[in-house]
């Protein structure tokens, strides 16, 4: 963890002056950041905005050395930005959009190995279950780190993760929630 953390810290500290450092940080973090944002916002364009905003915020932040876990910190920033954006948007618009996306994706459940199926299944999880699942699987965060981000107890995070898995398993096997 510390080696990865050190590497991330170095990239962040150097990205103001070194484009390669920014590029390396982007390559490492953009995918989990975008995935987390997408799962919360259900909108690619908005998710890209959030990722961009977070990168720019990192550029402006002076001291990352004091941060214990850079990866968790960045993903927490993404989540916060995404939730803020979510609050700005009207719920009706989002529900409409999500439903449309889900319908399209869920059609692929017959071919269950299709990643679209799991994407759709993940989107049908409850917000906290989906976030925990995404942080853990796509963000590669441990449950302790997720508990910190979500402001939950470790056991609560773990229970929700198990619940999410159970639901996903059921959905992927053709069952209903």
């Amino acid at each position: 963890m510390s080696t990865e953390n050190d590497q991330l810290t170095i990239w962040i500290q150097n990205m103001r002056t070194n484009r390669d450092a920014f590029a390396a940080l982007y390559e490492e973090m953009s995918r989990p950041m975008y995935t987390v944002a997408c799962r919360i916002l259900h909108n690619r364009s908005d998710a890209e905005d959030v990722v961009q905003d977070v990168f720019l915020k990192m550029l402006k932040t002076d001291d990352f050395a004091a941060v214990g876990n850079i990866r968790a910190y960045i993903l927490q920033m993404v989540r916060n930005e995404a939730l803020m954006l979510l609050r700005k948007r009207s719920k009706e618009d989002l529900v409409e959009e999500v439903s449309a996306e889900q319908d399209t994706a869920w059609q692929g459940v017959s071919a269950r190995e299709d990643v679209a199926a799991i994407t759709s299944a993940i989107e049908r999880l409850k917000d906290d279950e989906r976030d925990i699942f995404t942080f853990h699987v796509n963000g590669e965060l441990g449950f302790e780190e997720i508990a910190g981000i979500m402001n939950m107890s470790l056991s609560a995070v773990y229970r929700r993760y198990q619940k999410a898995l159970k639901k996903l398993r059921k959905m992927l096997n053709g069952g209903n929630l």
Partner: protein
Amino acid sequence: MKTMKRIRKILVMMLALGFVLGNAAFASDFGPTATPTPTPGGTMIGEVEPLPGEDVEQPHPVMIGGEDKYIAYEELEAMKTDGTKGFGGYWVDSEKEPEAIFVGVTQDANKVDILVRIPDSWKSKIRFVEVRYTYAELWDTYQEIVQNYMLSICDANYRVIYPEKQVLVSAGMSEKDGHVGVGVLKTLSKERQDEIIAELFEKYGDKIIIVIEDPADFCLDSGGKEVISHNIDTSVISGKLENQTAMTSTATGVIRITYADYMKKDGSSANYTLWIVVIGAVVCVAGMFYVLRVRNRRVYATVNGQTFAEGAGDAGSIESLARKAAEDVSEEGRNRIFAAYEKERGEK
């Protein structure tokens, strides 16, 4: 990431193992055979303590004086060996009551049987003191120790012929204190001292008190019987003394260990062991919890009728599928982000 987690797991296990082993190693110095040392609280007595019998003015077996007094001492002396029930010896104590004769009696002793043998004029001088062991019991203990640990390494002239086997410096019986004082050689290795201390206490219990003594000190007194004394380097003298002698051992700075001290140490060791067990159990439970958590994280998932272990990297697992389903920023999005970066950097 996975490698780091594995390293973390190994580190946790190593720490737990180190902790348990460290405790065990630490505990080994507190075992029942550890050499007691003086402590501020004072379970071990490190202050100047009179050695057994040292400050006791023993009654002279052949007293000059009236016939009654002579008879009284003769009778008391005889009681040591004639099987008088519960007789624990006798002594005088010049500080406490110089004129009195203190007679040790065990709980089952018949004081009347003792008093009836004392002339009337001396009956009033008798003070009974309850003791744990009879004179005969202490005498047997004393004899056994002298025989097994001292005479066995001496020649006919009580000269030490097997110095390498010597573990005791002195042995002395104290009727007043109700025990046999045993001087353990100070120059023995700590381990050997511990062994001897444990061995003696296991054999004789609270009939003895152990003193760690310097080898230059003289040994012993035998309560008016045969007296052997030797200097470890030079001469060995033996003979019969008419007067009883107190032990000649120096009492300065000696460490005296009672059976209670030994047991307390043993008990504290047991307490410590208990702590080790408790801590060990906690570490085990924590370890099991940790293992279970890791194990549980690898929940088996069924996809398409097949069961896959999560986190095992299986392409069919839910987690693997979810990883495959991770979203990538579009090319346009990437360009937009890099353009925003360049702009921000340029402004700075």
